[in-house]
């Protein structure tokens, strides 16, 4: 879709077909004419053809519309605030969190708890980091405030679990070390979803 086409918002005058709204028939003869007209118009068969066409589309042209959800998932927008991810540094594989405590401070639901200490190199080390997802309101302040892009919102939106503690530990949220190459950089708030181009549609404004 080119830009000119996209910017042309005069949808109302283009492809819309005006319905031929008959008047309510007054006499018996008019009613009879209406019935005959409607009977022999091939409208009923148009309906049949449309359904058959969709069936052919679905079966033979691969236009099946179903997403088999638990087995395949649609890409999710980076704006979506799902379960948090803790990212690693790509070079060393060490976690990015520097233990500054800003996320804990800004958290308006008071659900982030962290404990830090100095390790043997006099670097700050995160000894304990939990997010209580029973309290978290997924406001996204923690990701916004993080100076190192260490805590971000990930793609995991299925938050149902048998136990509260299931995904609240630092290790659970941390990118597994063997999947470091799959780690996705946070696009930041306002980023468009990866399939945004396909989803663009004209909004019909001028009815």
């Amino acid at each position, binding site marked *: 879709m080119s830009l000119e086409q996209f910017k042309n918002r005069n949808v109302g005058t283009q492809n819309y077909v*005006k319905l031929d*709204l008959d*008047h*309510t028939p007054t006499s018996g003869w008019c009613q009879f004419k209406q019935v005959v007209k409607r009977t022999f118009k091939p409208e009923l068969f148009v309906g049949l053809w449309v359904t058959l066409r969709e069936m052919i589309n679905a079966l033979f042209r691969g236009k099946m519309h179903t997403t088999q959800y638990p087995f395949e998932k649609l890409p999710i927008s980076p704006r979506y605030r799902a379960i948090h991810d803790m990212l690693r540094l790509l070079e060393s594989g060490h976690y990015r969190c520097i233990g500054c405590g800003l996320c804990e401070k800004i958290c308006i639901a008071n659900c982030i708890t962290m404990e830090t200490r100095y390790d043997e190199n006099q670097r700050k080390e995160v000894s304990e980091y939990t997010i209580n997802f029973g309290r978290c309101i997924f406001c996204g302040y923690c990701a916004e405030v993080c100076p190192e892009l260490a805590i971000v919102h990930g793609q995991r939106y299925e938050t149902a679990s048998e136990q509260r503690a299931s995904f609240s530990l630092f290790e659970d949220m941390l990118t597994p070390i063997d999947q470091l190459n799959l780690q996705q950089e946070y696009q930041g708030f306002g980023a468009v979803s990866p399939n945004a181009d396909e989803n663009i549609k004209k909004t019909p404004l001028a009815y």
Partner: protein
Amino acid sequence: MYEFIAFYIFAIATTILFVITVMSKNVLYSMTSLAAGMVLISGFFFLLGADFLGVVQLIVYVGAVMALYAFAMMFFDATKNVKEKHQNPALVFLLGGLMALVFVIMFSAPVIGDNIQALYPIEDGVGNAQAVGMVLFTKYLVPFEVAAVMLLVAMIAGIILAGKKMDYSLTKSEAIDEEMNVELKKGEE
């Protein structure tokens, strides 16, 4: 042998069903047993080899009892028992008994007197439908046509009685038509 067994099964079932029809206080029971009895009667026709009459019995009486159901549905709560009024049970019993006696005498007399003759015995090579048609359009032509005219008269009378407001339409409104005209003209401009 099979016919013998089947006849007695049909006979007993039909009798029981019609007894239920008369005795039951529940509309639903009596009508259901009436319908089932009518269907079972067609079984006798099949046993006698009169397939056509059997099927006609099936179609005609099934429809007729269905219409009765429609009335029952309008007048009664089908799940409750109907309270019957008996002004004079002795009189009812007497009259009913007398009628039953008359019927028994009427139908048993020819059998006892042994003077039943088949005027139209079954011929070979003529199907059921043809045989019925032959009789209807030769010997019984006048009663047949008179019955047809009577039904037609009843139907027209029914339509006239029921159809006083037939031309009045709930969906038709000229005011709406006018409004739509105006709207359409606006749209064209």
